[in-house]
């Protein structure tokens, strides 16, 4: 079976009122780096805990490595967790922390020594065996927590926002390290985060969650380029939203009229419903110039309201004649002039960059 973790119809209620998960269906492939992405309270941590066994689903089934995990307590699952707060054993040194799981499973002493040292090498903490957790920095503790989990060679490794407490630079470093370790080990990683950039960087696939439901699953590029719901489009990166109505179909093209009077067309994907809908366009896909070139399809005129200079790029906020606001992202390559606030500009973008949202 190439799916390491499967959740079938899993839902979780706390008490009578709180719904943490609503009928979740998920399949995670073997060896993949899978992220659960969403804002606080979306249910991603609950999902992780259900896979680990710390919570029992109110309905539905959990399979790990092909086996049904019902009635299996956490200590009997081939799963290990890296906790957000590291949860290291403060009263033991680094070596004993890492060796804990192996000792519990009665692995022979010589083998323990070997594997612990290999784990320390993996996380680049060789020689730290005798240190105590309180003597280590945040990043180092993070790595001990990771080593402690991977040394057991679990089928699935669960990581609950492990980089949350680190500063930006260290976080970026650790992201790359985690990715490379995962490659080296080949273990399935299930990674929970609220940082969309992190998810995009590290994951093979992302599951975007919101309010106890799954919004969209897919590879990072697909999530980014072809968001299916307004939430996904909004949560990941910056998006321009156009509310309006679908006018009709022209073969495989969809015609759309925005509330601000823009005529847009986009390729058709899946079924199209009529009535009020929303269209999403990424800022970097929009071209800006004093004058649009001839034949530009999705175009409009407007006035630049504000420009934010970000070093390599600039964000232009343009107000169209129809009253809509569009954000345009533009590379600051040499030679091109900046459009100062107040200047009249033309904007246009490709139909392929235009997405009709499902909600």
């Amino acid at each position, binding site marked *: 079976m190439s799916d390491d973790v499967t959740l079938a119809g899993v839902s979780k209620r706390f008490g009578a009122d709180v719904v943490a998960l609503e009928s979740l269906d998920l399949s995670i492939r073997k060896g993949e780096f899978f992220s659960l992405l969403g804002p606080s309270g979306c249910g991603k941590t609950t999902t992780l805990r259900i896979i680990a066994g710390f919570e029992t689903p109110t309905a539905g089934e959990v399979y790990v490595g092909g086996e049904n995990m019902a009635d299996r307590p*956490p200590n009997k699952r081939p*799963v290990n*967790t890296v906790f957000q707060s590291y949860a290291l054993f403060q009263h033991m040194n680094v070596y004993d922390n890492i060796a*804990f*799981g192996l000792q519990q499973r009665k692995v022979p002493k010589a083998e323990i020594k070997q594997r612990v040292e290999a784990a320390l090498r993996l996380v680049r903490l060789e020689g730290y065996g005798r240190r105590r957790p309180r003597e280590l920095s945040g990043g180092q503790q993070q790595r001990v927590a990771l080593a402690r989990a991977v040394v057991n060679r679990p089928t699935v490794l669960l990581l609950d926002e492990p980089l949350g407490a680190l500063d930006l630079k260290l976080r970026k470093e650790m992201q790359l390290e985690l990715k490379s370790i995962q490659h080296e080990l080949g273990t399935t990683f299930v990674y929970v985060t609220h940082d969309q950039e992190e998810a995009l960087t590290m994951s093979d696939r992302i599951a975007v969650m919101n309010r106890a439901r799954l919004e969209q699953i897919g590879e990072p590029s697909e999530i980014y380029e072809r968001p299916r719901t307004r939430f996904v489009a909004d949560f990941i990166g910056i998006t321009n939203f156009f509310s309006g109505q679908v006018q009709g179909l022209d073969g495989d093209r969809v015609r759309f009229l925005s509330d601000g009077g823009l005529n847009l067309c986009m390729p058709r994907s899946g079924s199209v419903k009529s009535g009020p809908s929303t269209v999403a366009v990424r800022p970097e896909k929009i071209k800006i110039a004093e004058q649009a070139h001839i034949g530009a399809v999705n175009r409009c005129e407007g006035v630049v309201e504000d420009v934010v200079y970000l070093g390599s790029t600039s964000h232009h906020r343009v107000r169209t004649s129809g009253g809509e606001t569009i954000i345009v992202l533009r590379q600051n390559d040499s030679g091109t002039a900046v459009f100062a606030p107040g200047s009249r500009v033309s904007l246009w973008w490709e139909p392929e960059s235009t997405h009709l949202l499902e909600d």
Partner: protein
Amino acid sequence: MARIEAQARPSPSAARRFTPRRLLRPRGGWLLVPNALWASLFFLIPLCIIVIYSFLPIDENGNATTGFTLDNYVQLNDPLYIHIFWRSIAMSLGSTVLCLLLGYPLAYFMAMQAGRYKNLCLLLVIVPFWTSFLIRTYGWIILLSPNGLLTGVLKSVHAITQPLDILYTPFSVMLGMTYSYLPLMIFPLYVSLEKVDRRVLEAARDLYADGWSAFRRVTLPLSLPGIVAGSLLVGIPSTGEFLIPDLLGGARTEMIGNAISDQFTQAFDWPFGSAMSLIMMVILLGAIVLYLRMVRRNPEAGVL
């Protein structure tokens, strides 16, 4: 040249300007003054008095008199008193262990499983303390008396035929001491167990530990500070206990506290009583130092 020299040597007024004045300002150490006064007045000074007394001889009327002698200490080196010391230490050790065995499960339950009833449990543990210690001890006498409540209950369920004969024995003394000191064991245990991070326990389970292993390897060592604090809070005062051996022991199980009390209130041999007190203090201090050292050296080893 001269100008340079003049510049090199600082003027006296300049030197004064650089006196570190912050050393002259008290920095919150004044907060300790009331406590220091209290400790000196009610602890240090009486302690000194006892030390002095322990070296005084007594005259033919049995009153302390001026002079210096080691007789009071020499007198203690006697099988009779050594036996009393050992018995006190044994009883105190026994009560401490009993308190630990009884108190730990309760503290564990309160910290880990009582949830929103936590505060109610704490209240229930502390309520007996609101009643006078003497009255509670007398309550035990009524309970354990051969014609008392316990005998009555056990007889009515036919568990025994003869009346219980446990009052005024070393057993009832140990029972009384365990009962009175139990809250002092429960509170530190509760506090240290409460501080155990639940996630750490989850981590242990995640790492293949079952309930018992997680307890033994994680919870128990992490609660060690509580165990130490509780043992000291129980063990030290109970060694010098004299009311309970007097009341519940029928004054026939002599502990060091009784012997000292007798010296001061009946024999009026204050020097000897002082020497006895000091030796007891020294022994207890030694025991504490040994205990703490043993615990610090081997924190994962646990206590028992």
